[in-house]
């Protein structure tokens, strides 16, 4: 086989076996030919000595398999770890400003809202439960009427307050969750 035939055959076999860096590999064999020719060998003799291109491509395939077996599976990703720590440090002051300060304000607002709504409810129930006593003392139908209407009015306000607070709290919690999710995404992105 001539040098050109040999290299062409080798290229075909390497490509068939999906061996990377074909060009570099071929240049090694070209150098081998060059040295052989320099020592007075013929291209046919050198080709003979090198062996069948099919065998050589298989040898590259084998070495590729050995390399993949020997390379350590998952070395600890130091780069990624440093990245994550860095991002955490960037986020920390940001989170303090975004989460802590508005968090404190919104949190106390929510707490106050719930307290008002529940107090209204409590007051309404207190009036309702105290009504028979007061009514018995004065026997006035007007007091009954006033007591019941005030009580129901307060109860309605309490229910409305609770409803509002429920949606407000839900909305805030959902916001908090999506913010935390964004945090996680920011930290874990590659």
């Amino acid at each position: 086989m001539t040098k050109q035939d040999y290299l062409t055959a080798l290229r075909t076999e390497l490509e068939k076996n999906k061996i990377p860096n074909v060009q570099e590999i071929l240049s090694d064999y070209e150098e081998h030919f060059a040295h052989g020719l320099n020592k007075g060998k013929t291209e046919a003799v050198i080709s003979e000595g090198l062996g069948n291109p099919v065998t050589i491509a298989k040898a590259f395939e084998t070495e590729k398999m050995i390399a993949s077996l020997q390379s350590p599976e998952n070395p600890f990703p130091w780069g990624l770890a440093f990245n994550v720590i860095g991002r955490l440090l960037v986020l920390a002051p940001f989170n303090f400003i975004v989460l802590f300060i508005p968090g404190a304000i919104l949190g106390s607002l929510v707490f106050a809202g719930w307290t008002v709504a529940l107090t209204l409810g409590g007051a309404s129930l207190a009036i309702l439960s105290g009504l028979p006593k007061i009514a018995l003392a004065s026997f006035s139908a007007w007091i009954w009427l006033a007591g019941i209407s005030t009580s129901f009015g307060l109860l309605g306000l309490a229910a409305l307050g609770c409803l509002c607070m429920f949606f407000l709290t839900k909305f805030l919690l959902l916001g908090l969750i999506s913010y935390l999710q964004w945090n996680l995404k920011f930290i874990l992105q590659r």
Partner: protein
Amino acid sequence: MNPQFKKGVLELCVLNMVGRKDYYGYELVEEISKILEISEGTLYPILRRLTEEKYFETYLRESSEGPPRKYYRITKLGQDFQRVQFRQWTEFNQQIEKLIGKDIT
């Protein structure tokens, strides 16, 4: 010689030879094929893997007597690897000798 035997020891030979001195491909192939009958072309895959695994590094040098030569030089990592491989080879030989005996001819 049994081709399976050769395949196993070729890497060890290459490691130890390049460990002693820098070789260029053709020279190494020539030296080995003086002693072991091999398909010369199958040595380059081994050289390439050992280089890719950072056991060897290569450099190009012009020569007055012929074409430029791609030399292989062992690295620090390669030396450590070679020592481990050599020790394993010696131990392996001793174990096999225990099993099959030294004196069979």
